[in-house]
């Protein structure tokens, strides 16, 4: 670990470049509760670490439990004039299972179930040792990189709003009852939103590095050179 204000402009050691505007900043440890922002474009560069990882892990577990409920309980039920129909989350994805629409089934299942589950697992895998001040597990770096790359494609929250709109659309047509899976999904959105508040990618990268992730030795720490 390097002391505050020590940096090397020829190698970039001890510096942080804003990912949004490229402005250079000197890396230093934050005060408790302090959030570091870019001086030029105000992008968050690092957020408070204390307790955040434990909270993200807890929220990830909560989202996994809710997702199990969302997948296995009935989702929505509709009835009119003696005709009734019930659908689960799988039923929604399977709506596209005819002919040329088939690939969309896989995509929809991935966006609303697969990727949220995978991201929760990857986050737990990355953060579990860090929250207990241990060395990260093997392959924590590619695991967290994958989790970040999948972030925009995990669309559970968009799906819930879509459900609400679809329900308004058929409300006049038939009687609808909401199953436990619907409520589990709504809970999932709140949990994910809370988790996103605590997740700052740069902070987690920093923690992985501080916890002694093996690098190939190219990294220059000023103290050891001086």
């Amino acid at each position: 670990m390097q002391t505050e204000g020590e940096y090397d402009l020829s190698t970039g050691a001890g510096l942080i470049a804003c990912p949004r505007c490229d402005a250079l900043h000197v890396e230093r440890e934050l005060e408790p509760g302090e959030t570091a922002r870019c001086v030029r474009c105000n992008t968050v560069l690092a957020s408070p670490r204390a307790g955040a990882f434990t909270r993200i892990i807890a929220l990830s577990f909560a989202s996994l439990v809710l997702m199990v409920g969302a997948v296995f309980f009935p989702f929505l039920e509709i009835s009119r004039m003696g005709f009734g129909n019930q659908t689960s989350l799988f039923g929604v994805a399977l709506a596209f299972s005819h002919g040329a629409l088939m690939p969309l089934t896989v995509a929809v299942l991935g966006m609303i179930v697969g990727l949220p589950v995978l991201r929760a697992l990857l986050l737990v895998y990355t953060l579990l040792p860090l929250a207990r001040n241990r060395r990260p597990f093997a392959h924590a770096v590619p695991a967290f990189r994958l989790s970040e790359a999948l972030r925009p494609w995990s669309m559970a929250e968009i799906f819930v709003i879509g459900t609400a709109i679809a329900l308004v659309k058929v409300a006049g047509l038939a009687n609808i009852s909401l199953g436990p899976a619907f409520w589990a999904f709504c809970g999932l959105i709140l949990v994910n939103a809370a988790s996103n508040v605590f997740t700052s990618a740069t902070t987690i990268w920093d923690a992985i590095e501080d916890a002694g992730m093996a690098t190939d030795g190219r990294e220059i720490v000023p103290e050891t050179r001086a």
Partner: protein
Amino acid sequence: MSVPSAEAPVLTAHRAGLVGCRSCGRVWPEAETTCNRCGSTLVPPDRRCLNAVWAWLAAGFVFYIPANLFPMLKTSTFGGLRGNSEATILGGVVELMHYGNYGVAAIVFLASIVVPIGKFIAISWLALVAGRPATVQAAHKRLRLYEVVEFIGRWSMIDVFIVAILSALVQLGFVASIHPGPAAVSFALSVAFTMLSAQSFDPRLIWRGLPLRSRKDHE
């Protein structure tokens, strides 16, 4: 993490002969190609990324055309006695307004027509002006626009989900049934490609060519 003083001139990694990692912020000598901390590919902030932006954007636009020409939803009521209807995106909006569902009509119109077209225009404009000199205020506006595009782009997928939910739910045999149309696939692809286009855009380009003297924009 701060420069010594807020009044000090802003030095960029590129100007200092370094390259910053876009995913974790670590700074490396310009010759490096992979970030040693997070394993991402290091790319200098230059106009090369624009090729990918234009290519994905073109793909997104190509798929947006059939998405509007083919039906999104096929509805049949009372075994076809009340008629089978096939609605395109725009047709669906008109139908919703016809039934007095103005709120839902507005949301579908916004998510499926206004947002995608706005996104095509916004990304094209950002790519066209990228790297050209700008004032600090203009750069802040462009970054804000980029963030809006990045945030709101995924929400267009909502129409695909609505189609999926309606088709899975409204299967009332003789009374009414809804099936998805081919436009759902091309619309989903169009949204995915424009998302990739926005992701390919390097926001650091917005700030290239800015006078670097001071963030307080005085000469």
